[in-house]
């Protein structure tokens, strides 16, 4: 099985980091993984996106054209990518920053006010990880154990307090109901 994931938002929202967390999860679960960032002028502000593939077979193109899963963290990203999600796929939307009504009736759209939740819980910058928490809950593409291991692996020892914050963010997203 292959899961193609597109993550998109503003530069600074942690789009690339969130993608890296997902890729690490896949690797720790002994799967084939790829992570491909946009590296154009977008990464210096403006929109930013990244493609992640998790697969049980060798990965061909690391470019995700039609995602199974979309994480969209701002309005332009939602508009740009929502139409490309495969029928039956999933979209996780930061509803603090995306106003558009559901654009598709053939996919599962989940709206989480991730930026507001992050602010209310003193998890500034944690909206990306909150959305991953919801993704884990609704799709089961990655497990709670793997995400915890991945976060412990990526966050450097010097910034240990960030581990707890990230784990809290995962739980917030996981437990959130509309």
């Amino acid at each position, binding site marked *: 099985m292959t899961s193609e994931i597109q993550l998109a938002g503003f530069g600074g929202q942690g789009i690339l980091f969130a993608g890296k967390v997902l890729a690490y999860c896949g690797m720790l679960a002994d799967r*084939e993984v790829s*992570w491909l*960032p946009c590296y154009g002028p977008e990464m210096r502000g403006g929109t930013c996106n990244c493609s992640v593939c998790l697969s049980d077979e060798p990965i061909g193109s690391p470019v995700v054209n039609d995602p199974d899963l979309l994480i969209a963290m701002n309005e332009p990203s939602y508009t740009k990518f929502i139409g490309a999600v495969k029928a039956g796929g999933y979209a996780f939307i930061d509803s603090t920053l995306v106003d558009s009504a559901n654009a598709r009736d053939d996919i599962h759209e989940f709206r989480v006010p991730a930026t507001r939740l992050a602010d209310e819980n003193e998890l500034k910058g944690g909206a990306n990880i909150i959305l991953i928490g919801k993704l884990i809950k609704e799709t089961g593409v990655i497990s709670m154990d793997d995400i915890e291991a991945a976060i412990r692996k990526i966050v450097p020892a010097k910034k240990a307090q960030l581990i707890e914050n990230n784990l809290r963010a995962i739980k917030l997203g996981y437990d959130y109901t509309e």
Partner: protein
Amino acid sequence: MANERMLMKGNEALAEAAVRAGCKCYFGYPITPQTEIAAYMSKRMPKCGGVFLQAESEIAAINMVYGAAATGVRAMTSSSSPGISLKSEGISYAAGCDLPCVVVNVQRGGPGLGGIQPAQSDYYLATKAGGHGDFYIPVYAPCSVQEMADYAVKAFDMADKFRTPVMILSDGLLGQMMEPVVFPEITDNEPEKDWACTGHGNKRRHNIINSLYLKPEELEESNRERFKKYEIEKAELPEVETYLTEDAEIVVTGYGASARIVRSAVNAARAEGIKAGMIRPITLWPFPEKAYAETVETAKAYLVVELSMGQMVDDVRLATSCKRPVRFFGRTGGVIHTPAEILAQIKLIAKEELK
């Protein structure tokens, strides 16, 4: 720890593998999409007794490599397409002096400043026109982060073995993407270099590294000698991966990033009952001609897929002696073909050539 899977960018994996392979000097100049190589080296080299130096230009960097290589140490530079054009003169000098070194090209779109997205439009530059004069250099084309690491090591070994610059021809996709990588075991393949210019306190004759021959006969002789070496390289170096080619009627061929997408398209074609296969050259020079010749009897047509307007397609026509139709499909400027686009080309060929 040694065999741990690590998640790294292609650029970083290549840099780490180069250090492990004994690269002691890295000289570079920033350019997207290869800057991570220089950035990694700037952190890593001082910790392992090596030299990292950001040169004032690409030309300076290749000439620093030329100097370092002349003293017998393993040296490397890296750049992206426009920067490699600038390095051409230095590559020619190093080839003319038979100096081992590694040059990495993480290709981007051209010509001119072009763009910063992935491309494969430096095939001619790498394999046929690396600089002025009569020379070739071995060119490796990795297609994964793992191979970025593996062929960095191999490039140094082959550079020393054949006393030649070696190029790794990568692209922005492979440089920027992250995949798991396991670093290869390093065997000490660095030979004695009795030709190197190292201080000896007048205890032996001076070694002189120079590519200037003012007597025509001497220059011709040196060129002939070097081309004898190329015959050995042509026999020993070609590397290729073949995939489902035994019964393939349509052989699709591409290198590097293109090959990843070709493989997906070939799988999709097989699922639809089309006998497709893939040849992926790993060495672009010497070109693995044999792999193509071996398929000429069973294949009915070839499709060359590149991120260019068509450069490797010439070598495929030569390697198949033009016995079968060779078609081309390319995207350029940083646009990357989708598996579906390549599948559509395969189906078109199936319709038109397999009657």
